[in-house]
């Protein structure tokens, strides 16, 4: 059992890490022989950089306005196996959309179920596998895409931790010209108090292919604390079309980070949306890299913040090639003592002429104790561009509310309707009725 990666002493130390805390021992995958050497090597590198990199500080520009003190992850334990009874219960609960092409269910980074329901997904060349299988069976294509994107929006340390601990997740490859009509949905459950999870999604949409993927993030116990540190990397090859939705609904005691890269090739078209409902502190870092002419990325987000929730959203629209387009729309509704942070940057690299980039964040404040921070940024290094951004913060229009009250609606209901209408504008941009209906139901549930 020579691994050649770590010394005997080091392994000894890892094995005797009695607490099982994620920040204490190295990745247990080091001892997991299901993984190939090169993957274990990557994990070890991840662990090393995690230890070397500093924790975010209040003065880091990438963490401005964020409550960095809430990032203490020292007490969370490594993902533990889920009991059998819970497993079957979770499988049953893991249905959001009626008609899907395929589905995977994970709990604490362990695959519980994988279903392939449509014939398209059975087509030749499609790969729809958990990561542990992709590592060995599709090593070349997996390896050339896995964790290859530079983390530029602040969470390098957490991306390193993810790399160290990741042990499952989705690998989806759609071969060229294949169109998968129905959405694919993936559930990621976090089970147990004080546990952790490192969900991973790696998607490659081949030339002129088309696919829709939805990731759901859920806790089994609404009162359990937890730490979630996920990565989703999406690659669109020439002419590919992707719709990606990320529904974050962790328990209200969860500290969550989600690091995304969407790489948009020539004439490809990505629509991605983040929905923030759960967690105590949730940070999302979303990067769209437009690396081929004619590429377009629509970046959307809907956040319903209440109680003492803090949603910290950082984005980058990175225009590396001419004639690329991006359009960002983030909407936040804030109740109670909620806080939101939006920091977005449109970057137009030199020579990325004829860029068309748009960025808009809108905050709807429903309470005097809520706080919305907006930092919409532009860095333009080319000319012949059309770039605009806007940020607004306001509240419900009293006249609109009065009108609804005069029609006999209760104040609470009127307010819910207005907030829903405000957020629904973003959901409609996804242009998928089934997903839209599901998300609308989710929002109503959170309002209730």
């Amino acid at each position, binding site marked *: 059992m020579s691994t050649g990666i770590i010394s005997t002493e080091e392994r000894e130390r890892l094995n005797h890490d009695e607490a099982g805390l994620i920040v204490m021992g190295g990745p247990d995958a080091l001892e997991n022989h299901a993984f190939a050497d090169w993957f274990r090597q990557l994990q070890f590198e991840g662990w090393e950089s995690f230890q070397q990199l500093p924790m975010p500080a209040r*003065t*880091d*520009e990438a963490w*401005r*306005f964020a409550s960095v003190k809430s990032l203490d992850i020292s007490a969370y334990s490594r993902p533990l196996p889920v009991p059998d009874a819970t497993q079957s219960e979770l499988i049953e609960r893991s249905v959001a959309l009626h008609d899907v092409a395929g589905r995977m269910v994970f709990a604490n980074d362990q695959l519980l179920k994988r279903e392939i329901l449509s014939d398209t997904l059975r087509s030749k060349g499609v790969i729809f596998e958990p990561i542990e299988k992709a590592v060995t069976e599709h090593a070349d294509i997996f390896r050339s895409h896995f964790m290859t994107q530079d983390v530029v929006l602040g969470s390098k340390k957490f991306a390193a931790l993810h790399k160290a601990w990741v042990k499952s997740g989705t690998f989806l490859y759609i071969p060229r010209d294949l169109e998968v009509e129905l959405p694919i949905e993936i559930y990621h459950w976090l089970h147990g108090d004080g546990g952790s999870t490192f969900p991973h999604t790696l998607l490659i949409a081949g030339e002129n292919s088309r696919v829709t993927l939805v990731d759901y993030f859920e806790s089994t116990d609404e009162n359990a604390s937890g730490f979630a540190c996920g990565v989703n990397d999406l690659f669109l090859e020439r002419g590919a079309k992707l719709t990606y939705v990320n529904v974050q609904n962790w328990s209200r005691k969860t500290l969550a980070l989600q690091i995304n890269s969407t790489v948009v090739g020539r004439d490809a078209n990505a629509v991605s949306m983040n929905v923030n409902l759960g967690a105590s502190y949730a940070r999302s870092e979303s990067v769209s890299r437009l690396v081929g002419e004619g590429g377009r990325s629509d970046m959307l987000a809907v956040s319903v913040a209440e109680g003492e929730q803090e949603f910290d959203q950082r984005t980058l629209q990175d225009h590396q090639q001419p004639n690329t387009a991006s359009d960002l729309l983030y909407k936040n509704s804030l109740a109670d003592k909620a806080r939101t942070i939006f920091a977005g940057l449109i970057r137009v690299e*030199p*020579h990325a*002429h004829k860029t068309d980039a748009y960025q808009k964040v809108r*905050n709807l*404040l*429903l*309470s*005097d*104790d*809520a*706080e*919305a*921070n*907006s*930092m*919409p*940024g*532009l*860095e*333009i*290094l*080319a*000319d*012949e*561009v*059309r*770039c*605009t*951004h*806007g*940020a*607004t*913060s*306001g*509240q*419900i229009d009293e006249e609109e509310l009065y009108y609804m009250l005069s029609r006999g609606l209760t104040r609470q209901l009127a307010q819910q309707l207005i907030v829903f209408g405000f957020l629904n504008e973003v959901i409609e941009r996804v242009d998928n009725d089934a997903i839209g209906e599901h998300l609308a139901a989710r929002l109503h549930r959170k309002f209730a």
Partner: protein
Amino acid sequence: MATETTIDIDRSIGDFSYPEQHTFDAGIGLTRDTVNYISDVKNDPDWVREFRLKALEVFESKPLPTHWASKDLEAIDFQKIRYYLANGQRATRSWDEVPEDVKRTFERLGIPEQERKFLAGVEAQFDSEAVYSNIKKAVGEQGVIFVGSTEGLKEHPEIFRKWFGKVIPTGDNKFSALNSAVFSGGSFIYVPPGVKVKHPLQAYFRINAENFGQFERTLIIADEGSEVMYMEGCTAPKFETATLHSAVVELVAMKGAKIQYITVQNWSANVFNLVTKRGLAHEEAEIKWIDCNIGSRLTMKYPGVVMKGRKARGEVISIALAGDGQHQDTGAKMVHAADETTSNIISKSISIGKGRATYRGLVHVPKHLKNCKNNTECDALLINSTSRTDTYPAITVRGTGNAVQHEASVSQVSAEQIFYMMQRGLTEGQAMSLSVNGFVNDLVRQFPMEYSVELKRLIDLEMEGSVG
């Protein structure tokens, strides 16, 4: 305009320098001795000396803000700068007493004799000390105090001390600390209640010695219901080594008062211009900064207004022209600290050649305030394919009942427009100049006449070299 063009802007315009002698010279570098020397020469009261020495400690303890600001700041060698230089002349009051070479400098600045008469009062700063101070009779009769800051702190300590360092504390940032340690020159203005100063008060600043930094300190207090307009313009001779300019300007508008502060900054392209400007607006008071940045190597300046009283109003109108090798990092800060306060920021920038214009803004609406409004508009114009522009606003809004909106856009001069004008017989440079002047025209119109004329000339000068 996607083609690479070689830019050759004539920067010799405004470059002139005459031999000079200085009786007082604090030498090169910054230590406690330097600060003590300045205090000795200026015959500072004890509290000022203590204030300076404490500020030096703050300056030394603060790191450069390169975690968000330009790394170019690292090019400043604080130990190679001369912090105080003066010929020991007292402020003179008649034009005849002004040295001949200084008069020549004014001539080159293009201020015609006739126009000078219109200037309400000229506080001409030649190096660190005011050598010429002319308060128009009428202004003096109204009870307005318009003197150098050194004179102000000695002769009017009861007003000066009450507000000095209160709007911008020493520790606000590294450069406000530096200014607090070594400041000399600048203006002190007090406008008594109800007095409306008809003519703008004006001061010209110049840098005229190599390695010599200017650290003006200006404090303007407009008492209840008064109104005053202050204008500040700078042009500096060209030197071979970097020069540092770090001013602190504090404005206090009491209840119902109005202050307008106008700056046209045209330092030569080797100057680091790191300035802190902030105003405190009490109830129903209004503070307006009109800020135009054309020169310098790196300017970092974000004029701010703290709206402390109900219905106070803050405004920043900003024009930045970033030519080759220049970085104009400018913007505004609006801190709403009372109900029904309103603020407005309009920023227009033009980036030419390899120039970089950055807008950095801060809007803060804290908890439990009602009916506060902010409007921010930033427009950037890119002239060449190598030009760069950035926008970094930070907006915090707490609670309901307030409306804040920010909008920014980036565009370029349309090729069709230029083509059209050239068909009509204009050169490409003239056409470009016309387009750019059109882009900023609505803001330039807000400047007093002589400034808007000067501004137009400066834009023409810049644009002449921008097309190749």
